[in-house]
Structure formats: C-alpha cells, structure tokens
C-alpha cells in the first residue's frame, strides 16, 4: 500500500515504510488476514448498533438514526509530537479566553487597533448582554474543540476553533472502548495514553467554575432533547459524570435562581453544561419562539447565581472571520509567539484578498463565515464549473460572509475500506478543558474522509472516525527492566 502522493501519511514515510513509532503496530496489521479485519469491523458495527451510538442527520426524517462509520485502524501519535501539540493547544485556548473576556470588558485589543471593531461588534455572535458581566475565573470557553490538520510538510495547523458547543468527545471515548474490546492484545503491548478519565476531568472542571460561595455545586447537562443529532453524546456524558440530563422544560427560574423540577420538589442548579446554542437558551432574551431554553436564565446568569458552560457569547471568537486574528491574540495577550500556526486564510471582505480568491476559485476552499458541519462550502479542485460560478456570484454579493483557504493536502492514515487498506484523509479534534486549570486529555477525535480523495471529514458528509493513540513516553533504560520481553523490531 502506498501513501497518497504529496499528502503526509501518519503511518508510512515517503518510501512506504512504517514510521518509527508505528513500526510495531504496522507489522501486526500486515499479519492480520483481510477476513479477520473484516470480521472485526462487522463486530464493531454490530456493537455500535446495539449500544445505539447513532446520530441523526439534518434533512432526513426526524429520528432517523445512522451509525458514524468507525475505522478499526487507529491513528497513532508519538509522545513528543503530542507534547508539542498539547502546549500549542493550551496556549491558543488561553489566548482565546483572554480575548473573549477582553471583548466583554475593556476591549483593549480593539482600542489597540489589532482587530477592526466592526468585525467584532457587528458580528451576530457578539452578545451585548454579556458586556461587563464577570464570570468565575474569567473563563468563557470551558470546553473547546480545536480542529487540527497536518499539511504536506507534516506541520500541525489549526483549521478552526470550536468554542460554542463542540461535540464528538463521546466518540473519542466509545472508539477507545471498542478498540480495547476488539484488540485487547494491542493495548497489552503498546503503552497507549488512556482517555477514559475525560468525564471525571470534565466534571471537576465544571465544578471548579461554579458561582463563588457554592461548596458542593449541582451540575446539569442541558440538551435540546432526544431528537437532537448529538443526543447520544449528551446522554452519555451526563451518565458518565453522574449528573442530571435536563431539557429546558425541566428547569425554571425564580427570583433569579435556577431550579430543576424533581420528584421531591425544586432543586437548585449551580452549573449548566449546555449543549444548546445561545439563541435558544432564554426565550425572554433571545429567540422568543424557542421552547428549548429556560425563561429568565439570562437574568440568573447575569446575577451570578449560575454558571453556563460554555459562556454566552463565545461565538464571537470562533467565527471564521475572527479566526485569522487568533495568532495575533496569542501575541497580544500572552506576549508569546504562537506554537500552532493557522491555515493561510483570505478574508474576502478585504478587496485584495477577494480579488485573489476570485481569480483562484478553482484551487481554493471557500467557507461560509458562520457555517459549520461542512455545509455550504466550496472545494475548488473538486467542484464543477457551475458550482464555482455559483460561489463567485454569492461571494460578489456578500463578500463578508466568506473566507478562502488553500486546498490542504490533509494528512492521511491507512484505513480499512471495501478494497482493503488504503490511505484516507484525516483531521483531529482534541478537547481542551479550561477551569481552575487547563487540561487536554491525550488524543481527541480523529475524523476520516472515507471517500477516496475526499477532504471532508464531517460525519454529516460521509466522514467516519478512528481511535486516536497517543503513545506513552518511551521508557528509559531502567524502566524497561523486568518488563515483559518484547519481540525485536
């Protein structure tokens, strides 16, 4: 099996030989018969169905459930590489939190002229309601999903920051559970960093940002309900943390205090881990027709009686039109050089960027500034001329709604497809937790574009997932003594 020309392969080097850290796994993989691998994959599918790890797809019948395809070949990352990535992620999220706090207080970065004020203050994701509101620890994005890709040189870049309600962590956990069930022998042999403690870390993190003075905070997870596409994840996380999974109708606000309705009467709620967009949180303040939220929640929030995670208004920092400024934020707030680069981005609001992009639509990826989930984007090299012309018209009409980026040769990983093992493009979404401390569970969700040549990894667009292995630091000479003898490489 050869790697795709020009893309960086996570497992194989340019000559087709396994990279150092994958050598052991790759040899094992080549020893497995195709029948054996196929049977393991069938086993995984059956298990995922029984457990009901499914998601709903917008635009299909309500309640339609599909499996996210799971690939049994893991993505493997050596310890040193992860250490670098982890540092970069923490730095970036610290800067993003500092930025949001600044925007909702002094707006120093705007006054310093680093970002045009209109870019922020006229952004629909900017919430004037949050101006001057002080939050515990000054944290806004408590849970961040930072999408990381690798370019053809093997360098990590941030593709986007998800600071509102990032999802996918349940797949990270379930994928690991599945791999341990399917291939226990691999875990006995390789030192693979665990991820199972994520729910504990998340719960601790949420408790650490409870309103001041609350000693034993009650945390709940607010879901839009059983028909939401990520409902499985909501229920899963609530169960794993041992907290109540609530819907808007279960909560009410009295005298600026939030309560849930229980069989024993009202019970006070201190922290809401919400999996609902800002717009739906409080019909009195945002969309009046929404029945998913809680009337009066914003009042309780502004009074400091409840913490909402992530905070209201974080969207102002993960908007694609703000993304180009994030490296600058790192410099501005932390006085450090960013460890993680952005993907070069043309902001089509700017005339010179727009002129370049319109002249090169056939090579670029064009994204809607407020889009998500892989909807509403143009991948130039894969698009028909009609699609390109359609985007040209849309960009000319509303240039501020679009950005453009080079078509990245996302890195690839061997993936089990119908024809056997073949390289497929992947990305990585690690989850960064910010509270009293900042934590990243080693790994994240690796998404894989299953169609040959496709660069779109979103589950709504035919993407699948893989388990992500961060290898433990290699043992020193002393640590190896007494360990089970390993086969020579």
């Amino acid at each position, binding site marked *: 099996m050869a790697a795709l020309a020009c893309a960086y392969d996570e497992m194989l080097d340019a000559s087709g030989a396994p990279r150092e850290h994958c050598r052991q796994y790759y040899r094992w993989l080549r020893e497995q018969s195709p029948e054996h691998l196929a049977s393991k994959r069938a086993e995984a599918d059956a298990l995922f169905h029984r457990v009901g790890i499914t998601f709903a797809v917008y635009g299909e019948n309500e309640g339609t459930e599909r499996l996210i395809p799971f690939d049994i070949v893991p993505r493997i990352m050596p310890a040193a590489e992860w250490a670098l990535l982890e540092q970069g992620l923490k730095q970036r999220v610290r800067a993003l939190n500092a930025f949001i706090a600044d925007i909702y207080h002094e707006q120093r970065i705007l006054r310093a002229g680093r970002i045009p004020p209109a870019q922020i203050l006229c952004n629909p994701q900017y919430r004037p309601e949050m101006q001057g509101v002080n939050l515990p620890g000054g944290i806004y994005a408590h849970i961040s999903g930072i999408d990381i890709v690798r370019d053809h040189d093997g360098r990590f870049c941030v593709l986007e920051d998800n600071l509102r309600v990032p999802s996918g962590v349940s797949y990270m956990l379930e994928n690991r559970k599945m791999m341990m069930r399917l291939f226990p022998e691999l875990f006995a042999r390789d030192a693979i960093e665990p991820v199972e403690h994520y729910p504990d870390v998340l719960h601790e993190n949420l408790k650490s940002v409870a309103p001041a003075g609350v000693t034993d905070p009650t945390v709940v997870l607010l879901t839009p309900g059983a028909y939401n596409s990520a409902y499985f994840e909501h229920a899963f996380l609530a169960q794993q943390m041992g907290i109540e999974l609530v819907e808007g109708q279960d909560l009410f606000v009295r005298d600026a205090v939030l309560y849930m309705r229980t*069989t024993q009467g009202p019970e006070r709620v201190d922290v809401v881990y919400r999996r609902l967009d800002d717009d739906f949180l409080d019909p009195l303040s945002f969309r009046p027709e929404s029945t998913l939220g809680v009337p009066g929640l914003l009042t309780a929030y502004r009074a400091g009686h409840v913490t909402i995670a992530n905070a209201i208004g974080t969207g102002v920092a993960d908007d694609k039109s703000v993304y180009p400024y994030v490296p600058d934020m790192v410099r501005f707030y932390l006085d450090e050089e960013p460890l993680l680069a952005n993907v070069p981005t043309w902001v089509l609001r700017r005339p010179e960027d727009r002129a370049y992009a319109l002249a090169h639509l056939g090579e670029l990826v064009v994204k809607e500034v407020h889009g998500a989930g892989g909807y509403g984007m143009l991948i130039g090299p894969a698009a028909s001329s009609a699609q390109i012309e359609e985007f040209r018209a849309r960009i000319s009409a509303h240039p501020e709604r679009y950005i453009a980026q080079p078509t990245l040769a996302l890195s690839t990983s061997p993936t089990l497809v119908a024809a056997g093992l073949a390289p497929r493009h992947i990305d990585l979404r690690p989850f960064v937790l910010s509270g009293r401390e900042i934590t990243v569970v080693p790994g994240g969700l690796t998404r894989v574009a299953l169609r040959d040549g496709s660069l779109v990894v979103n589950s709504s667009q035919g993407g699948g997932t893989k388990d992500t292995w961060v290898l433990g630091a290699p043992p020193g000479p002393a640590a190896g003594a007494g360990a089970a003898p390993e086969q020579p490489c």
Partner: protein
Amino acid sequence: MLSRTADHLYWMSRYLERAVNLARMIDAHQRLGLLPRAPEAVLQGWQATLVSLGLDRAYRERHGAVTAGAAFDFIAFDREHSGSILQCLRAARENGRAVRGTITSDMWETLNTTYLKSLAFSPSVPPSARGEFLEWVKYRTHLTRGITSGTLLRGEALHFIHIGTFLERADNTSRMLEARWRDPGGRGERLIEEASEWAVLLRAMSAFEMFRRLYRDSVTPLRVTQMLLMRDDLPQGVHRCLDELQANLAAVANQQSRETLRRAGELHAQFHFGRFEELCAEGVTSFIDRFQERLRDLGERIANDFLVPEGTH
C-alpha cells in the same frame, strides 16, 4: 430525580408491561380458536378484546368485519395506531432512550435490541410464526425485567419503574377477567361453563400451574376470578400489584402526594381486607368497572404529584 425522568421511566415500564400483556391477551384468543367452539364465538371474543382495548373503532375503519387473522395483526403488528405490541415496544424504547443516562447500559441495550429486532416482524409473517412472535415478546420482557432487577440501583428510578409496571399489570389482569366475563360480547354477563375456556385464560397468563397448586380443584370462573383478584402471592394478581404499588408510592412520597397515597391505600384495603363475595355482589364486571375507574384516577394523581402531568407532554 427529575420529574421528567420519572415520567419516562414510568411510561417505559408501562409500555413494556402493556406489550407483554397484549401478547398474553391475543395468545389467549389464539388458544381459544383451537378449542371446539362455534366460529362466531371466536370472532365475538376478538371483538370483545378490541372493545376492551379501545381499538374497535380504529379496527373497523381499517378492516371492517372482524376476522381472527386481521385482529391478530392489528393488535400485534400494526404501526398505524399506538396500541399495538410493536408500537408499545417502540414507545418503551423511546422512553428508555430519553433516560438512557438513568437506566443502566444493559437495560438500554436490551430495550434497543428488542426494538431493532421487532422491526423484522410484520403482518407478512406466516401464521405459524405468530406464536413464536408472542413467545419472543414474553421472553424479551422477562429479560428486560431480569436485567432491571439485576443491574439497577434500588432507588427512586426502580420505584417509578415498579409503579408503572404494577399499575399497568393491575389494569391488565382486571381487563382480561372482564373480557372473559363478557364473552361472547353484547349478551351481558353469563357464566361460561366450559372450564377449558377459563383454563386458556390461565395459561395465557402463565397462571395455570399456580391455580392447580392453590386450588387442587376444577377450573371455574369464580375460582379463577377470585385467584386473579384476591391472591396477594400471585405476581399477576390484582391484590399483589396493589401491594407493590402502595409500597413503591410510599417510598417516593413527597409533600403533595398525601391524598394519592391515601387513595392507593384505600383501594388496596378493599383487596386486603374485603371479602370476594361481597365485592362482587353486584356482579364481577360492575366491580371491575369501578375498580378500573379508581385505577385511572390513581394514574392521573401520580402524574400530577410526581411526573409530568397529563396533557402537558
């Protein structure tokens, strides 16, 4: 516990119990159809069952005249109305799905598997496979109950599951008795002399062997009725269900549930201290009618005190 969570648990168990009770009910008719009875009597039996399930009008609109095969399919497999076995299994699973964080993974996976497998059944299954379907439903509900008792914390969740189960079961046992007493439909009450027909009822409820052990005597309508209403040691018996209902309600009592508990206790006392002959002095069916009226009242009160009140779903 969230009121909505309690509500889902309660309905999850009610629908599951209803599914197996429907299976027992049509199993009884299947078996009656094998006895040497006049064909009209068999059809009248199906008719009476549709009436007691509140499905007779919906059935007539779809199929017209009652036939054994169409009635079976309507109660077992029809997905167009909410009262069929398949729809009950689906509703149990949907309620379980809404609280899959509260029930154990084993419970959820069992409910989910039951639902996924149920999708394979439809009226096109050959008649010979119908009995198998009913056995499968019984087996899956036994399994779910066993897993619930084997894995779920002894706490509020289990209490609400039990409240749902026993309310539904008390209702069902009384309904099956009533249907038997009214069969054949429309001619008022009369004693059915054929012991075999009442034996069929017992078998469908998996209570035949218990009857033999307890009575060591021939099967008569009054004995069967007395057993199914008054025994406090028979899991299908109304008295037993009320024992359980009362105990589980007491365990979750809150500040507003006093009157509900009082009524549950009063209803229970009829069976605990009452004499069968006196309770049924005005006829078994009129006693059961009144009993069902009071069960309905209890159900509404439970919803108001603990769950999501009816009509606000």
